[in-house]
């Protein structure tokens, strides 16, 4: 069937009918007369003023592909709500396919929605203490209710356009979906929309140039962080599971074997060489850490231990020095202590072999007091190190916390536009 057409009774121009017999209202593109196609005389319902003319972004007659089916843009209207004295206008496109019927696209500030009328009756409910609607197994939170009026029409509509009439429009959201209720009292139409990027509209209709950039955040715009936050928490949970596994694994695998222990005395005033060498002891098993612990009886004194763990066979040495100091006393604030009598050091990745320690203690010699220390040296093989684990734990949560904060910020901006 070729495109049917009518002669405009107002200006005599050609009015194309792309919506076939479905078209109830048709608008003459030349003179903007609104015609009732169901009356034999093509009654002129009203006439838009030329200065009110709005150019559709999708030219009427353009065909595009949505959900795998071709649709033709046949109608276009601008609708306006007034909130606190400010007019907000959005535009709606009527799309037609003779087999699949009608779909609609809406556009506001570069945000698009792909809309279809639904036949189910949503059920009222609550979500987080706010009014909500349940439909098709999904809960939609109330976003906004306003009185909308039609401020410009062009093309064809499968309903009778009455631009003077104000219609109550309520939007409920479950991003990326939007449930809309339209109508006054008795007859109500429900529709379900899904957020669409301008770029996808441009691609679907093969429009020239680029889609206008979307401004701000739209009611049912999917949060770029919404899914990400859930995923980040899921990832954090998995990481924490791995963390716990490694922790238990480490705990079970580490041997904590004592390889050597002995006690020594050091007198700072004794003459000659102060270093000593322990007997050779065996470090067994896989390459792993070695803990060298010092226990002293220092009191209000310090000692410095230059130490080396030396492989008896290869001569490879692990040099390290430890200062141990312990002071205590009493002042106006009461008892105080500083430092500690004990110390330990962890040498990572020491291969198995026969080792000995070289220890060279050093103490204060400037003082008249006699400095000496009794100390014990303990060498343990394969000591679990958990410090790392407890540093890592909060780090695992950082991405999830960050994404959650961003998501919250996005939702805050979304709801700024909604009814309080």
């Amino acid at each position, binding site marked *: *069937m070729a495109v049917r057409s009518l002669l405009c009774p107002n200006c005599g121009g050609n009015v194309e009918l792309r919506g*076939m*017999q479905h078209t109830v209202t048709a608008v003459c593109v030349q003179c903007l007369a609104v015609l009732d196609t169901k009356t034999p005389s093509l009654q002129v319902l009203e006439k838009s003023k030329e200065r009110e003319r709005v150019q559709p972004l999708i030219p009427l007659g353009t065909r595009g592909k949505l959900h795998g089916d071709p649709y033709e843009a046949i109608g276009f209207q601008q609708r306006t709500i007034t909130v606190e004295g400010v007019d907000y206008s959005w535009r709606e496109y009527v799309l037609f396919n003779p087999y699949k*019927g009608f779909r609609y696209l809406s556009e506001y500030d570069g945000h698009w929605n792909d809309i279809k009328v639904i036949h189910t*009756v949503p059920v009222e409910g609550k979500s987080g203490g706010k009014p909500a609607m349940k439909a098709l197994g999904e809960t939609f939170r109330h976003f906004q209710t306003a009185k909308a009026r039609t401020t410009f029409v062009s093309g064809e509509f499968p309903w009778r356009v009455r631009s003077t009439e104000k219609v109550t429009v309520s939007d409920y959201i479950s991003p990326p979906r939007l449930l809309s209720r339209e109508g006054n*009292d008795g*007859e109500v139409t429900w529709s379900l929309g899904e957020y669409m990027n301008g770029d996808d509209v441009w691609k679907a209709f093969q429009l020239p140039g680029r889609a206008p950039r979307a401004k701000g955040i739209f009611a049912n715009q999917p949060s770029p962080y919404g899914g990400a936050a859930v995923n980040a928490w899921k990832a954090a949970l998995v990481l924490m599971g791995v963390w716990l596994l490694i922790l238990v694994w480490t705990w079970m695998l580490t041997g904590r074997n004592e390889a050597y222990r002995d006690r020594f005395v050091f007198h700072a005033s004794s003459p000659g060489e102060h270093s000593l060498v322990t007997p050779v002891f065996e470090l067994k098993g896989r390459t792993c850490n070695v803990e060298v612990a010092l226990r002293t009886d220092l009191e209000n004194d310090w000692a410095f231990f230059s130490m080396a763990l030396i492989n008896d066979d290869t001569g490879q040495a692990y040099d390290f020095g430890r200062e141990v100091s312990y002071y205590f006393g009493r002042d106006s604030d009461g008892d105080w202590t500083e430092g500690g009598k004990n110390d330990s050091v962890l040498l990572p990745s020491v291969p198995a072999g026969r080792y000995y320690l070289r220890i060279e203690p050093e103490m204060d010699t400037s003082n008249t007091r006699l400095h000496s220390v009794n100390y014990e040296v303990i060498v343990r093989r394969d000591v679990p190190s958990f410090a790392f684990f407890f540093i890592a734990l909060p780090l695992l949560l950082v991405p999830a916390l960050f994404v959650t904060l961003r998501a919250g910020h996005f939702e805050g901006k979304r709801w700024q536009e909604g009814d309080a």
Partner: protein
Amino acid sequence: MSGRRANCPNCGAPVEFRWSSAVQAQCPYCRSILVRHDVDLERVGEYADLPESVSPLQIGSEGVYGGKAFQVVGRVVYEYEDGSWNEWHILFQNGESGWLSDAQAQYAVTRLADAGRPLPNARDLKPGFRLILGGREYVVSVKTEARYAGFEGELPFESWEKDRMLFVDLRTEGRAFATIDYSEEPPLFFAGEWVEFDELRLKNLREFEGW
């Protein structure tokens, strides 16, 4: 008339029935409207042209609903304030019949059903009103005053003498849908559901130039 064939009482032409229980049909030759009375066909009027319609369905279209294949054998066209819609009479393989309605390419399949109670007076049904029929809760969505605008093919009832009629559409929280036809006394209850074009797997559809 026992078989699936009979002769037109007006012109004598053979009239073939796709459905042996058809009550109303048309003669393909002289365009007489034929109504079956027991064994005889009676000519009750002359068939008038149907209003132009854009339904993609036509007599002979085939599809599948609820796992059962069906064929379109008849059609009633109704006109209302904002246009028209089609009720396609469909015949399932097992001999059951039903209706596939097409209103602006929104499709629903319904069958004559038992409401389980007397149907309420149409005056009492206002949009938004809830009622339980056939064990299901419905919400009145719209009352449509329509005019019988013509038929084609085979129908399970006589429609030719009807004029003004009232339909009350009922919706639910799901896909289920029903309609009460107040043109009969007592009124008829048709229950079914909304269907998507693609799920009917339709064949032998009408073609639209350019589509």
